[in-house]
C-alpha cells in the first residue's frame, strides 16, 4: 500500500476496528453481567429444591431412627441416595454425617471439590428430639451457570450477526461519505504531483479543498491556454515557429493539460450501494430457512390429504425455487427495460407481500402461492442488483464488483438463518415472516432513496450475428461436454443444496428434537464454509489449473459427507453433511463456471458467453427446484435419515460419472483438464 493510499485506508481500518470492538465489548460485558446476575438469583431457587429434598429425606431417615436402628448402621442408604441423585440431575450430592461431623454415607465424589462451588443445605437428624447427625443436600452452583450459559451459542450468533450487519452498514456509509471523496482528493493530488493538471468534471467547486485543487489546475491550464494563444499568433520566422512547436510538445510530454473524462473511481464505488441492498433482500428471504418445511408440514391442506407429509412440506419450497428459476431470465430483461430502481422496488414489494401473506394467512395453498410470488420478487431483486453491478463496472473491475455482490449474499447466508432460528424459538414462525417482510420493505425504501433509475446501457453489439434463445439451446444441446457438466455437476450441486440444506436439514433436525436456533446454527455452517474457503479454492484452481478436479472432488466430498447418517441419525452427522456440502460447493462453484467457458468456446464465438452462462444457470435453478420435491418423495417413502443417505449416494454417483466423462475426454490425463476442451 502506497503512502497516499494510507491516507484514506488507515482511517477506515481504524474506524472499523473501533466500531467492531465497541460492539463486541458492549455485548460481551452485558452477557457476562446477565450470566452473573442469573447465577446469583437462581442459585437460591435451586437451594429451595435442596431444602425440599432435605426435608423429605430427613423425614424418612428420622422414621428409621425411630425404629431403633443406629444412624451408623442404616442399610441401603448409599443405594437410596444414588437413586435420588439419578432422578434429580440438579442435585450434586447427598451426605449423612454423625454428630461430630464425620461422613457416614453419601455420594462423595465431591470431597476434592472446593466448598464454594456448592450450596450446602443441612438438616438435623433427630432421635426423640435430640440431634444425632445431619443430612446434607448439596446443589452445584455451576449447574445454574451451565444452564444459563447454554445461551452462549445464541448470544455468539447475535454478536456475529450484529458485527456483520454493522460492517455492512458502515461500509456503505463510510464508502459513500468518506472513502470515495477522500480517494478522489488523494488521486487528484497524486496526479497533479506527477504533472497531470487535467480538470475533472466531478470536482465540487465550492468545496474548500476541491476548489483549491481546481484553482491549481485552472491556473496551470490557464497558463497553458495563454501560451497556446500566444504561440498561435502569426510568426514571420519559420525557425522560431518550429521552436515554439517544439516547446509546446516538450511541455505536453512533461505535463497533461486540458479536460479529463469522469473519474473511474466514482463509477466503481457505486457498486457498494448494491451490496447493502442485496444483503437486505437475502436476509429477509433466508430468515425462514430453519423452519419453513416444518411450518409447511404443520398446515393442513384440504383436498391434498392423499399426499404424504414429506411431499407437502416440500411443495412451498419448490414453488419458491421454481418462481425464481422461471422468472429470472424475464426479470433480467424487464430490469434492463424499466430501470434498476423500479425493478428492485417491485421485487422488494413482491417479497414483502409474499412474506407478509405467509405470516398472516396460515393456509397451506396460500403459503404455496405466497412462496411462488416471493420467488418472483427475489428474482427481480437479484437481477436488479446484478444488473446494477454490470451497469457500473467494466471488464477491468467487473469481477471485483461481482465479488462484492456475492460477498453480501454469503454474509446474509451466514446471519439470516441463525437469526431466524433464534427468533422463531422465541416469537414464533408467523412473526419471523412478518419481520422478514419488514426488512424487505426497508430494502424497498432504501432502494428508492439511493438507487438511480438508469436503464441498462446499450451494450456493444456482439461481433457474431445475434442468435435466438432456441438456437443457443439447440447448439448447447449438441455439446456433450456442456451437457455432462450441467447434468453431472451443475444440476446435482443445486439439487443437493436445495433438497438437503433448505428442505431436509430442518426436517431431519426437528425430528431429532433440535430447536430452531440449533437448526439455524447448523445451517450457517454452509455459508461460513463457502465464505471462508471459496476464495482459497478459486486460487488453487487457478494456480494448478485444476478446475475439473475441484468440481469432481467437491461433488464427491458432498456425497460422502451425507452417507455416515446410515450409522444412525444424529445432529452431529447432519452437521457433518452440511459442512461437507459447504466445503464441496466452495470447491466447485467458481471452477464450474470456468469449465462452462472452456467447454463452450466454439459456441461462445457465435452466441457470446451471456446466453451460455444463462442457460447453465437456468438448468442449475431447475435442478434446485426439483431438489425439495424429489427429497420430499424420498422422505415420504423412506424417512428423512434414508433420504439423506440417498442424496449422498446420488451426489457420489453423479460425481463419479463426471470424473469418468472428463477423465476419458482428456485421454486419461489428469482430470485437471476439462481444460483441454
Amino acid at each position, binding site marked *: 500500500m502506497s*503512502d497516499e493510499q494510507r*491516507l484514506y485506508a488507515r482511517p477506515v481500518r481504524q*474506524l472499523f476496528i473501533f*466500531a467492531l470492538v*465497541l460492539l463486541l465489548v*458492549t*455485548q460481551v460485558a*452485558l452477557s457476562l453481567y*446477565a450470566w452473573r446476575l*442469573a447465577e446469583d*438469583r437462581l442459585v437460591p431457587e*435451586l437451594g*429451595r429444591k435442596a431444602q*425440599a*429434598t432435605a426435608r*423429605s429425606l430427613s423425614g424418612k431417615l428420622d422414621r428409621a431412627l425411630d425404629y431403633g436402628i443406629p444412624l451408623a448402621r442404616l442399610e441401603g442408604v448409599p443405594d437410596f441416595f444414588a437413586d435420588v441423585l439419578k432422578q434429580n440431575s440438579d442435585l450434586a450430592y447427598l451426605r449423612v454425617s454423625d454428630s461430630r461431623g464425620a461422613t457416614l454415607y453419601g455420594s462423595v465424589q465431591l470431597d476434592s471439590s472446593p466448598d464454594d462451588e456448592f450450596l450446602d443445605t443441612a438438616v438435623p437428624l433427630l432421635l426423640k428430639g435430640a440431634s444425632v447427625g445431619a443430612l446434607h443436600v448439596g446443589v452445584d452452583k455451576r449447574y445454574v451457570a451451565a444452564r444459563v450459559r*447454554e*445461551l452462549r451459542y445464541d*448470544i455468539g450468533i*447475535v454478536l456475529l*450477526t*450484529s458485527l456483520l450487519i*454493522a460492517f455492512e*452498514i*458502515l461500509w456503505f*456509509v463510510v464508502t*459513500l461519505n*468518506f472513502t*470515495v*471523496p*477522500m480517494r478522489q*482528493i488523494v488521486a487528484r*493530488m*497524486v496526479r*497533479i*504531483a506527477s*504533472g497531470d*493538471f487535467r480538470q475533472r468534471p*466531478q470536482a*465540487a467547486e465550492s*468545496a*474548500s*479543498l*476541491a476548489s*483549491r*485543487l481546481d484553482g*491549481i489546475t485552472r*491556473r496551470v491550464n490557464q497558463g497553458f491556454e495563454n*501560451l497556446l494563444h*500566444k*504561440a498561435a499568433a502569426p510568426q514571420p*520566422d519559420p*525557425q522560431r515557429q518550429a521552436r515554439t512547436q517544439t*516547446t509546446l510538445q516538450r511541455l505536453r510530454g*512533461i*505535463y497533461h493539460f486540458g479536460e479529463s473524462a469522469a473519474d473511474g473511481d466514482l463509477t466503481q464505488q*457505486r457498486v457498494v450501494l448494491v451490496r447493502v441492498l442485496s444483503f437486505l433482500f437475502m436476509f429477509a428471504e433466508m430468515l425462514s430457512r430453519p423452519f419453513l418445511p416444518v411450518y409447511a408440514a404443520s398446515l393442513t391442506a384440504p383436498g391434498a390429504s392423499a399426499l404424504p407429509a414429506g411431499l407437502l412440506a416440500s411443495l412451498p419450497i419448490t414453488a419458491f425455487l421454481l418462481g425464481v428459476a422461471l422468472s429470472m431470465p424475464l426479470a433480467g430483461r424487464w430490469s434492463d427495460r424499466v430501470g434498476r430502481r423500479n425493478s428492485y422496488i417491485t421485487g422488494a414489494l413482491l417479497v414483502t407481500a409474499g412474506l407478509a401473506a405467509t405470516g398472516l394467512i396460515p393456509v397451506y395453498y396460500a403459503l404455496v402461492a405466497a412462496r411462488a410470488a416471493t420467488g418472483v420478487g427475489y428474482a427481480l431483486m437479484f437481477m436488479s442488483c446484478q444488473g446494477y453491478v454490470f451497469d457500473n463496472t467494466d471488464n477491468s473491475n467487473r469481477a471485483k464488483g461481482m465479488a462484492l455482490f456475492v460477498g453480501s449474499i454469503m454474509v446474509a447466508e451466514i446471519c439470516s438463518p441463525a437469526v431466524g432460528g*433464534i427468533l422463531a424459538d422465541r416469537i414464533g414462525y408467523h412473526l419471523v415472516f412478518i419481520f422478514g417482510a419488514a426488512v424487505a420493505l426497508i430494502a424497498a425504501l432504501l432502494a428508492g432513496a439511493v*438507487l*438511480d433509475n438508469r436503464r441498462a446501457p446499450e451494450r456493444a453489439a456482439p461481433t457474431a450475428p445475434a442468435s435466438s434463445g432456441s438456437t443457443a439451446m439447440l447448439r448447447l444441446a449438441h455439446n456433450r461436454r456442456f451437457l455432462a457438466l450441467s447434468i453431472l455437476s451443475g444440476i446435482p450441486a443445486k439439487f443437493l443444496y436445495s433438497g438437503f440444506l433448505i428442505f431436509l436439514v430442518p426436517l431431519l433436525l426437528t425430528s431429532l428434537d433440535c430447536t430452531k436456533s440449533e437448526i439455524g446454527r447448523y445451517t450457517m455452517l454452509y455459508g461460513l464454509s463457502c465464505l471462508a474457503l471459496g476464495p482459497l479454492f478459486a486460487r488453487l484452481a487457478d494456480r494448478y489449473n485444476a478446475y475439473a478436479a475441484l468440481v469432481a472432488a467437491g461433488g464427491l466430498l458432498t456425497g460422502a459427507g451425507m452417507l455416515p447418517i446410515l450409522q444412525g441419525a444424529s445432529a452431529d452427522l447432519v452437521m457433518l453433511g452440511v459442512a461437507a456440502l459447504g466445503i464441496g460447493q466452495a470447491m466447485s462453484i467458481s471452477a464450474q463456471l470456468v469449465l462452462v467457458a472452456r467447454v463452450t468456446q466454439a459456441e461462445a464465438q457465435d452466441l457470446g458467453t451471456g446466453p451460455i452462462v444463462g442457460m447453465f444457470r437456468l438448468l442449475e435453478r431447475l435442478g434446485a427446484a426439483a431438489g425439495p420435491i424429489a427429497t420430499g418423495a424420498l422422505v415420504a417413502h423412506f424417512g428423512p435419515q434414508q433420504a439423506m443417505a440417498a442424496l449422498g449416494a446420488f451426489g457420489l454417483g453423479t460425481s463419479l460419472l463426471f470424473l469418468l466423462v472428463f477423465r476419458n475426454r482428456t485421454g486419461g490425463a489428469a482430470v485437471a483438464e476439462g481444460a483441454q476442451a
Partner: protein
Amino acid sequence: MPRADIGAAFKRVAIPMAMSRLSISITAPIVLVSALAVGLTVFLNVGKLDRTLGELEQSRLRFTLNNLRENLETGLDLGLPVKGLGNAQAAIDREARADPGIVSIAVLDDHGAVAFRTSRVADGSSETVRLRTGMSNNLGVTMGAIELAYSRRSHERFMADISSQLRMAALVAIIASSALAVLGIRLWVRRIRRTLSSIEHTLDQGAPPQHPDRRAAALAEQVNRSTQDALQELDRAERAITSADVAGTGL
C-alpha cells in the same frame, strides 16, 4: 448518478460544517446496531432465565409430588382405598405449609373425585400451574392421583425484577456505548480534519496546523512543487515565445 450524490459527498469531506454530518451518519448506524444487538441479547437472556427458573420450579414441585406419592402409595400397597389413607391429609398439609407458593394439593380417587384437599384452594386463575401424578398400588392398578396447584406470582415477580435489572443494564450499556461511539467518531473525524487541514495549509503555504499529518502535508508539498515547476516552465516558455530572442536560447 445515484441519488446519494457522490459529488455532494465530496463536499462533505472538505467542508468543516459537513464534518458533523459525517459524524452523525457514521455514529448513528453504530449506535443503532449496538442498541438492537443489546436489545436482542437482553431478550434472549430473559427468555432463557424464564425457562430455567420454570424448570427449577418444576423440578422442585415434581420432587414434592413424587415424595407424596411414594408416601401415600405405601398405604395403597397395604390394600387401603384412597379415601382410607389416614396419613394423607397430614402429609399434604405438611407439604403445603412448607412451600408458601403451593396454592393447593388435592388427592383424587380413581374416579377423579377429591378425597383430600388442603385448606387453601386454587382459584383456577391463569396464574397457577398444575402438576399431577398418578398413584398405583403394588399390583400396578391405578388408584387415583395427586394434583398440586402452584402460584406463578413469585415466578412472575422474580422475572419482572430480573428483567428490570437487565433492562437497566442494557440502558447503561447502550448509553455507554453510544457515548463511546460519539467520542470515538469525534476523534476520528478530528483526525480526518487534521489530515485535510494539513493539506489545505500546505497548499496555501500557510503556517502548519498544530499537529500536522506529515504524510498528507508531504503529498501537498509535492503538489505545490509540481505546480510551481509547471508554472515556471510555462512562464519561461511564454517569455521565450514573446521575447526578441531570435536564436531561441530561452526555449
